[in-house]
């Protein structure tokens, strides 16, 4: 690192952020692009203040056709409890069969269903005889209770038969009801998700209809870095499965560990949108995978001690380790956030990194929305509305400041959400919609 620093300093003469590749030896360009940006690269001098650092990882477009696609290891865990009877289970079966048709002989798939008990319908197998798999899936009939925890457990166990760092290991869970056999609280399922993530398994949760527990489903997906979707009508399942499999098939990096070290007395305050571990001035977080052509980022709010005008300081250095799925090698990226201090407020405003600023504001507003739902859950509708109103005001102000259309749209959304809070009748549905929206926003989900 120390060797690279002088070079970095020179290079940022005009730009305020820097991307560094620490493995120039690799002939091929790395599939992932890291950029570390301060939303406000020029800060007011002589003043302790907070600032947002955006650490962004973008999967670069790959010529998937030419390259070997990352083989997958997927378990589809289907809820076949009594509530799934009829159209729901029919669409679920067809969606699963259609999705599996996208896979090839290098992929591994298994299908697990659960009601009161758990059945491994298709044990982990290479996708060679698709007709066989489809026949087994077509035999699924709905009936019974909802042993969601055991279903996910058995599903993950099927994955483990072929688990490998060189495969995309994923559980796709479809549920339309509340778990009622075994652990059923969001935090318990979150714990399981966190444990699976450590093995490189992501759980994507698809909530069908209005009966499922959106907290449980988002926590399970969140802790394991999977996707989450709310599907109101069963006929949309096929589309969602399609998107999910599209995501799975475009994974280019896995086990992405991000380590941020705040320097020069900068203190990390919070990570927006994602889970992370803060120890002293170090922040660690982890993404299970990166997809090609998708940007995943995290916003770190930091506290910066006062500095003299004209000074230039390193704020945070970032190191990213990941498993390159294309060449099956461990690779590393690093970056540095640097701030300049100025007396001129105009300079501060003019130098704003619009994209990073927008994203930071978006995540702050998103955190406010999450808080608003919590207040609404406690029954405090006025406080929840006030929180959203405040968030809308904040978005309005900031959108004006950076002249952002995106933030204006978000402000309108937040105002709509504030009305959505009121209706008692539609709250169940609205809450699922809001949870899904917040989740997608926090994790930059592609669909």
């Amino acid at each position, binding site marked *: 690192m120390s060797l690279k620093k002088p070079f970095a300093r020179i290079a940022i003469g005009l730009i305020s952020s820097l991307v560094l590749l620490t493995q120039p030896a690799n002939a091929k360009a790395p599939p992932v692009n890291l950029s570390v940006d301060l939303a406000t690269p020029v800060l007011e001098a002589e003043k302790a203040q907070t600032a947002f650092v955006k650490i962004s990882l973008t999967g670069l477009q790959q010529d998937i056709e030419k390259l070997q696609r990352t083989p997958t290891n997927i378990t589809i865990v289907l809820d076949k409890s009594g509530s799934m009877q009829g159209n729901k289970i029919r669409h679920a079966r067809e969606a699963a069969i259609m999705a599996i048709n996208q896979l090839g002989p290098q992929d591994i798939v298994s299908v697990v269903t659960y009601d009161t*008990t758990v*059945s*491994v319908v298709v044990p982990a197998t290479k996708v060679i005889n698709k007709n066989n798999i489809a026949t087994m899936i077509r035999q699924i009939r709905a009936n019974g209770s909802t042993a969601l*925890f055991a279903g*996910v*457990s*058995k599903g993950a166990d099927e994955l483990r038969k072929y688990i490998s760092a060189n495969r995309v290991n994923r559980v796709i869970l479809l549920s339309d009801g509340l778990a009622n*056999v075994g652990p059923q609280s969001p935090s318990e399922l979150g714990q399981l998700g966190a*444990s699976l993530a450590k093995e490189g398994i992501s759980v994507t949760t698809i909530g069908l209809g209005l009966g499922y527990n959106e907290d449980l489903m988002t926590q399970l997906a969140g802790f394991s870095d999977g996707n989450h979707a709310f599907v109101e009508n069963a006929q949309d399942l096929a589309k969602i499965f399609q998107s999910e499999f599209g995501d799975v098939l475009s994974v280019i990096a896995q086990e992405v560990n991000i380590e941020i070290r705040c320097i020069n007395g900068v203190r990390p305050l919070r990570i927006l949108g994602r889970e992370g571990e803060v120890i002293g001035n170090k922040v*660690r977080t982890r993404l299970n995978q990166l997809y090609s052509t998708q940007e995943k980022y995290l916003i770190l709010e930091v506290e910066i001690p006062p500095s003299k005008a004209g000074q230039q300081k390193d704020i945070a250095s970032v190191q990213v380790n990941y498993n390159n799925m294309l060449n099956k090698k461990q690779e590393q990226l690093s970056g540095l956030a640097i701030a300049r201090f100025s007396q001129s407020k105009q300079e501060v405003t003019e130098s704003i990194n619009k994209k990073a600023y927008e994203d930071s504001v978006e995540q702050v507003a998103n955190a406010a929305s999450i808080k608003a739902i919590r207040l609404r859950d406690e029954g405090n509708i006025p406080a929840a509305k006030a929180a959203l109103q405040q968030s809308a005001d904040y978005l309005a102000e900031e959108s004006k400041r950076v002249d952002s259309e995106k933030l204006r749209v978000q402000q309108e959304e937040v105002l709509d959400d504030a009305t959505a809070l009121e209706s008692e009748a539609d709250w169940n549905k609205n809450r699922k919609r809001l949870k899904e929206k917040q989740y997608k926003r926090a994790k930059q989900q592609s669909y």
Partner: protein
Amino acid sequence: MKHISTQQKIKIILILLITLPICLLAWLSFQLQKNEQIVQAHQAQNLIETRLKAVERELTAYFEQLEVQLRSDHQTLAELPQNQSTDQVRNYLRESPLIQNIFILSSTGHLLFPPNIQTSIKEKSFISQTKSIWSNPELFESLASHEETSPLPSTIDRSAQLEAYVSPVSQKKAVASFAPSILSSGWISWFSENHHRLLFWVKDSTNRVIGFDLNRMRMLSDLINRLPDATQLHNGLNQSAIQLLDDNSSVLYQWGNYQVADNEQPLGTRYLSPPLANWKVNYFSHKATATISTWLSTLAGSLAFGLTLIGLGIYFYREHQREMQQAQQRVSFVNQVSHELKTPLTNIRMYAELMAEQLYEEDQQQKRYINVITGESLRLSRLIENVLNFSRSQRNAIKVNKAPGIIDECIKNTIIAFEATLHNKGILFDVTYGAEKTVYFDKSIIEQILNNLLSNAEKYAHTGKKIHLTTLLEDNQCKITVQDYGPGIPPAAQKKIFDPFYRVSSKLTDGISGTGIGLSIARQLAKLHGGNLILIPSEVGACFQLSINIAPN
């Protein structure tokens, strides 16, 4: 009706013959079944026990493997140099799916990890949550010393809601060779955030203690993955189900094909050993699956037996019916013949009597002949009357027609009919009349009875030369005694003389014709008339007493 016909008797006997063995068989098979059930219940219970034990073994095996794993992890962590230790432990935690937190205590009881400074929120909360554990070194001491003596869970410090157990692996000596530096290890179950959590600690020879905080959900997930899923039918759970329940008795996992109803009582329960103390596995199944089939076979067996018996019974009954019918036919034949004989006989008697009246005084010879004809035809008509009465009594067709009259008159008439014949044999009548009042009785019945008694006396007691007749009125009863002075009836035969077709066999009766139904008919008639005919003891000869009811109906 008091009187039970032979037909009915036979029916009853046949029914008894059939039902008794069936009842006996049913009872025996019931007893057998009961024993069988006890045996089967015992076997089923054993089977359930075995299955539940197998489940427990599977779960215990998980913890044994886990302990071996954690002990080797302990080795790795303990060997780290001091300056790298913190980072390495954190890396270990980031990688380990099962371990959420770790604390390391130095030999003096100080926390080496998590460090005092630069700790994450998660680490801080873990330290504060487990303060009661790591600040209490006795928790690790006492178990070590108890290890050899008490393999059972020892509960310590209830107030802090802690429970400590000796680890199953610690009890096995073999482990010592695997990890020689480890002194002891054990489990602590503690309570936080409404859940029991598990902590495994290992203490090495330098008295350093490492505590591993398990991710409860991951542990449960691993346990579930060791248990079969619903599709694995070969484990013989087609008609049963097993549930794994936690310490709050809520179902964690269930497998097997059987549908468990709400609040259904399990057929078997097994409480798991520490560290899963208070967890249990429940076994459910149909209660009587095994017994129904044997019940069916027993039922079929007894049914077949019963049917055979009933068939046999019906066969015998039919056979008997046929014989009875044949006998009936014979009787009705005799009856008809008797009827046919009666009319010409009456004519013979009537004309003989007419002839006797028209004979002159001097035709003594002819008169004697006519008397013989009249006497014999009278005897024959009595005989026919007896036969007809007997068949009537068989059909219960005799009716008593009481009419007012004087019994003594009736007796005089009867004696007149007999006087001639008796006189020929030298028998005299000695009559004591005592029934001159007009009473109600059936003349023909009284005559018939007396005819029988007198013809018996004529046949068997003519040696006595005398017949003594007494009549007596008593309230509603009239008693008529007929005493002869013949040889009498042997005591052995006295009871049987009223049975139909019974004839006393002796020198006396040899050569004398008779049907053997006379006394039987006489007694039946007497009974019909509300009285009885009995043999009363006398010094000489035989003495019959007839009593009849003489009240108007």
